[in-house]
């Protein structure tokens, strides 16, 4: 996926903005490699951030399997599956956007990035319906707020504590990701990216794939526990 092995393509320079390598790098390769490594390290911290929640999940599920049974009943796996599909599709459009940037296709890059934002909003809409449905049932996060009339177990709410923490943190990441995508869309529209420089698109893309990947773990763990 790097520019260095892409075949040489004639670039119509008038379409794209001038750009110099930042002062402290020797050349563009060093800059690109550094950014990529930095991004991977950042993704590692994100995985560890969620890692704490996954540990909490495992601990409580091992201790209270019956709570998990009861809790998961209130989740609609169909909604979860739709969202999984949406996010996977958005990862595809994101990857294609990077490809188009490498190929100097400004319009294609912008359109694909917009499609990614659109899909991400779709995810949020589904999530919104899921949350409001639960609030409607009285399933609020937290022990004192849990007012579901048909509850069977005293600690049923812990399942939802973990559910809300995990999905809530994930939604926050979706929002950050969308902000990032919108930022690169604006820059792409100004013609800042072309075959020799598309680092920000690639970095935001990596981040977006991680957001997608985390959901791919959350979906079976939370929705498909039967």
């Amino acid at each position, binding site marked *: 996926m790097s520019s260095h092995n892409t075949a040489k393509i004639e670039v119509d320079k008038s379409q794209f903005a001038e750009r110099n390598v*930042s002062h*402290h790098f020797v050349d563009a390769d060093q800059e690109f490699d*550094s950014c990529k490594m930095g991004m991977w390290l950042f993704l*590692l*911290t994100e995985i560890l951030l969620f890692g704490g929640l996954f540990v*909490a999940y495992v601990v409580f599920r091992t201790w209270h399997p019956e709570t998990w049974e009861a809790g998961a009943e209130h989740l609609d796996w169909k909604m979860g599956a739709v969202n999984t599909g949406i996010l996977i599709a958005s990862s595809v459009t994101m990857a294609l956007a990077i490809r188009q940037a490498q190929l100097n296709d400004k319009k294609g890059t912008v359109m694909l990035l917009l499609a990614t934002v659109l899909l991400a909003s779709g995810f949020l809409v589904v999530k919104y319906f899921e949350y409001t449905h639960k609030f409607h049932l009285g399933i609020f996060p937290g*022990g004192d*707020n849990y007012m579901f009339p048909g509850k069977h177990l005293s600690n049923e709410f812990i399942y939802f504590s973990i559910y809300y923490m995990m999905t809530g943190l994930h939604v926050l990441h979706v929002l950050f990701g969308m902000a990032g995508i919108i930022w690169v869309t604006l820059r792409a529209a100004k013609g800042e990216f072309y075959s020799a420089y598309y680092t920000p698109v690639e970095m935001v893309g990596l981040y977006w794939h991680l957001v997608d990947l985390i959901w791919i773990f959350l979906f079976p763990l939370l929705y498909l526990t039967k």
Partner: protein
Amino acid sequence: MSEAGTNYINHEKGIMSWLTTVDHKRIGLMYLWSAVAALAAGGFFALMIRFQLMSPENDLISKQTYNQAFTLHGVIMVFLFIIPSIPAALGNFVLPIQVGAKDVAFPRMNLASYYIYVVGSIMALAAIALPYFIEGWKPLDAGWTFYAPYSKQTAGPVILMTMAAFVLGFSSIFTGLNFIVTIHKLRVKGMGWYKMPLMLWALYATSILQVLATPVIGITLLLLAMERVLDIGIFDPAKGGDPVLFQHFFWFYSHPAVYIMILPGMGVISELISTFCKKVIFGYNAIANSSIAIAVISFFVWGHHMFLSQQTTFSSMVFSFLTFGVAIPSAIKIFNWVATLYRGSIDLKTPMCYALSFLFLFTIGGLTGLYLGTLSTDIILHDTYFVVAHFHYVMFGGTVIAFFGGLHFWWPKMYGVMYNEFWGRLACGIIFIGFNMTFFSQFFLGSTGMPRRYHSYAGDAHVAETWKSMSGLSTMGAVILGCGIAIMFINLLISLKTGKKAPRNPWGATTLEWETQSPPVHENFEEEPKFTREPYSY
């Protein structure tokens, strides 16, 4: 590129040129003075604790105030002073020059990390100060460890303080991430991994810990905040949660964190000892690799903080074993440093005095750690002053002493002036004496069973005398220590006005930062640096 006489300090003028700088050297200095301010604040609370404990039934400060004093002392010293002291202040200054680069890989992120540190510090200060101004708020008293469920029940502004630590964590992650990428990607041509100065190995290992461990404390503090806001029941036993899970999470970060604090100090000591012995460092590879070994093993020892918290005996045994394991790479370093001293031409300049102090104090700190890693003795010593003494021997006797040594070592490079050697050495001597009085006495207190964090103490008849005399000695030592530190800083500050101009390489050291002028020019090197000489080739 630059005319004669310009350097990174004077090439741009005005406060704004500092506040918006992306120059790693300037950011390093801003970190330095912020950390020193934190040291002063943390030291103030330390003295408050010591004066209260000077005599058994003292009522200098109330119990509530006392609890706040030790909480604030811990939080400020750990999060605002020690963690940024060597990596973010000294490391930021020297790392890019040592690798022969113009800056860190992500200069703007470096500046962001400083501002995040400032925001986190302001939040921490607000958590300290606001309770005195806002009715209904109680001061913070949950210790620097925020153990649940007390941290859920107490009326203090726990959320504000944990969010402050959360924010500070990001600053630490950014610094670590920047350092890792800089070391990987920006090394000057010819500098292979095993040709790097040992300071870089130490900072590299530290950065790995910062990047991998800090997110875990982040999520832990977030969960604790949610526990208070929403009552999510994960840590609260009354709701079916598990307070020990909090301890696991907390120490999974906080044990590596003590290595975030000590590893950079070890890097400084490697530089100092080789430079002031005029001798190639003994066992370069062993010292380099042991830094990485410490980083790796330190992730698997956290359970030694929980020998008495409902952990199974078997896991306690495993954690105890691994804890002994992490002592090995530390010991390897000590032996190599001592071997470097052997037949070296030792030059007792101020930084070297600190390096020798470090060897004594860190050895005591390290060995007493083994008492605490041993299950049977830990049961007796747990939560006594022995722990306090051990911790301070490692953190103060180790890291802070190394920080002072490194500060003197790089001072001529940072400001281009030489400090007064006589006063520098004298301050080091006073600090050494004051430190040992303050904390060696606490080993006696701890081994006779005096618990930590108590506001007043009487003690049984057979220990009452010891407790009284040793506490008094400790307080006296703390005052001497404070004076020593004050003399040290006054000496450094005076040198800014009256110090002799520093040459490029006042110590005859071999790493790249000594090849540039003092202070360095804006982008570090007047000409492209060349790696011609391995470090420590005397």
